[in-house]
């Protein structure tokens, strides 16, 4: 297995592109699951809703906005080049942000 270390902030805020190089949104949050002693990043939150993720409820409550962002599973994004993360699936296959999570 190939492995490589990088800083989370190298990915944070990067624009994710789809297969046709169309920008999908910015990486704003990384949802992880604890398995044993480790935390595995299982989902990437993309787009303006990701910013709301970071701000956690406040703005939504103020402006009555709902989701609007997208969620990619870890296997739906290629972060081989942290400056240029790309989807490995189509945009339609992405999930949407659940405001209650």
């Amino acid at each position, binding site marked *: 297995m190939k492995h490589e270390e990088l800083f989370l902030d190298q990915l944070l805020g990067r624009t994710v592109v789809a297969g046709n190089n169309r920008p999908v949104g910015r990486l704003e949050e990384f949802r992880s699951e604890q398995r044993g002693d480790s935390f595995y990043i299982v989902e990437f939150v993309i787009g303006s809703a990701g910013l709301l993720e970071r*701000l956690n409820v406040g703005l939504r409550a103020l402006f009555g906005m709902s989701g609007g962002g997208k969620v990619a599973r870890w296997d739906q994004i290629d972060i081989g080049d942290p400056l240029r993360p790309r989807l490995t699936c189509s945009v339609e296959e992405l999930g949407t942000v659940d405001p209650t999570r």
Partner: protein
Amino acid sequence: MSALLDLLLGIVTGIGGFVEVGSISTSAQAGAEFGFQLLWAVAVAAAMLALLTEMSGRLAVMSKRTIAAAVRERFGIHFQAVPLCAELVLDLLLLTAELGGAAIAVKLLTGIGFQWWVLPTGLLLWTTLWFSRFSIVEYGIGLLGLVTLSFVLAAWRLGPDTGDVARGFIPSLPSHDGVRYAFLAISIVGATVSPYLLNFYSSGTIEEDVTPDERWVNTATAYGGDVFGSVVSMGVLVTAAMVMQPLQIKIDSYEQAALMFVPAFGRWAVGLFAASLAIGCVGAALEISLNMGYMLSQIFGWSWSANKPRVENARFSCAFSFVLIAASALAVLGFDPLRLTMISVALTVVVMPLMVLPFLVLMNDTQFVKDQRNTVVGNAVLAALTVLGALMALVVIPLEILGG
């Protein structure tokens, strides 16, 4: 200490600690040039400060975090870097102005140039911070600061027409120099709603270990202290309006401002004015310095507390010491304290939107304020303040150039 005593001390501190070099200079100039016409600006500024102070306290009580810490955690360092750098510059300038103001007060009493008094004043301030616990600093400022009630006493003794004073609370267009009027109105806000005050208040709330059950004390102190404290600023404005405006004296220096006490206090005028200016400035200088230690420690995660021995929190102790040394060095260079004050006040206004905006998010985030979120009214007022702050920020520099 019972909650009621805490409240009383908190309000006294709010009154005694309200005026400092910024509010004295802006209110005095406003009174001298526009009579009672800008009293509404003092009232609006005080209301803004009270609202933001209460929120800072509530945030600290419910989340055990100050604003600086909460902004770092919620918005990240990229967002915080901008207001942090702005506030470092601003606080240094303001501290320099306060040191200058205190030094001028001593000059008024001794006749010896103010630059000679900067280093002794700086040393006195540092010694006070070095050897005192938080409550000594805070309540000391408040109690000593009651001497600034001389401004209220002077205003009362001059016997202004109550109808005229009351009309000053209704915003009106000036009969002359609209640009200067607008600039002074905005400057009064900038002098009152200082960023350091909010973080200092939230830090103090944590130093005093205020629990959620006692949050009513926070609310009452914030509103009571700031509203009653603003009466002192109004005293400055009314006194200047009664004494300086009829003689058409524009206030160009603090030495000149001292004249406003002569009709009310006769031979006590210079002494009382000097004491009020000195204590007001010293109090603010102590808060600004201590807040620098608080702010840097909270943002970078160092231990902090004015209630622990200085050696236990060496980075915190060095931070507030260093800013005092730097400001003293700047003040010794002899920049005109009044000019410096007006520049600091304008810069405060420029920074203000960045200060107010985080509150919109933090005060509605249950992770921080739990069930003590803002009401709809509170949010509406806060949103209006943010917009107002942004508008003021846009116009203050052009106004300063045109009318300052």
